[in-house]
């Protein structure tokens, strides 16, 4: 049960980064850490003690592979995480071009 709790702590560290940090790049880093922790948690659920990698060979019988279904889902999720980070970085470049800073306390021309 200890790896699950440590994975939850990693998720909370990412959440802490999104809430408290004031620099835009660190907010993006916090979001990416949250995504990594969720991927790791789903792979840890599918692990079988003493299992091997899911490649078919003649000398392994069917019952001794790890679960291939979470691996197939997380394979897609990793590439989508890259797409999300690239989109956020494009917005960060645009904000820097207009305001000259990455600090979110100074980007407030929508107030009032």
């Amino acid at each position, binding site marked *: 049960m200890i790896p699950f709790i440590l994975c939850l702590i990693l998720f909370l560290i990412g959440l802490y980064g999104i809430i408290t940090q004031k620099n835009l790049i660190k907010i993006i880093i916090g979001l990416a850490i949250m995504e990594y922790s969720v991927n790791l948690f789903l792979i840890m659920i599918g692990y079988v003690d003493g299992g091997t990698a899911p490649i078919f060979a003649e000398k392994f019988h069917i019952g001794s592979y790890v679960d291939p279904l979470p691996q197939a889902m997380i394979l897609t999720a990793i590439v989508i995480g890259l797409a999300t980070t*690239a989109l956020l970085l494009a917005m960060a470049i645009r904000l820097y*071009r207009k305001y000259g800073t990455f600090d979110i306390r100074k980007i407030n021309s929508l107030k009032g």
Partner: protein
Amino acid sequence: MKGMTIIVRKVTQFIAPIIFLFGIYIVFYGHLTPGGGFAGGVIMASAFILQILANGEILDKLRKEESGLEFLESGAILGFIIIAGFGLILSSSFVFFSNFINKGVIGKLLSAGMIPLENIIVGTEVCAAITTIFIALVVYKDEVAL
């Protein structure tokens, strides 16, 4: 953006085709060894990224002739849907993605129906997408005028 010295450029001229060939190998053998379309596509894109980072000053040509990447990416994702449509038409059961080419012996290169074709198409699409993202965020950072 500034390029690198001439030693780096010559070594890149030797290494980048080998990296591209390795990416093609991982895409083609995706149904026998770990890897597949996504990993091979990103490795193929990294060969292009290496060339762009090494030769900096010749990049002014890229600002005018860059219309090859969008055709490749759009054509790949259209091809994916067309192959799925073939599965719809040519198979006995009326299912969208059914595997209509015959599956050979497990473990040989020409096996597993249409999975190698799908691997190649997805590999091309991922390569074009990641190269476009890199060019837009790193090279064209100030003006994207298309």
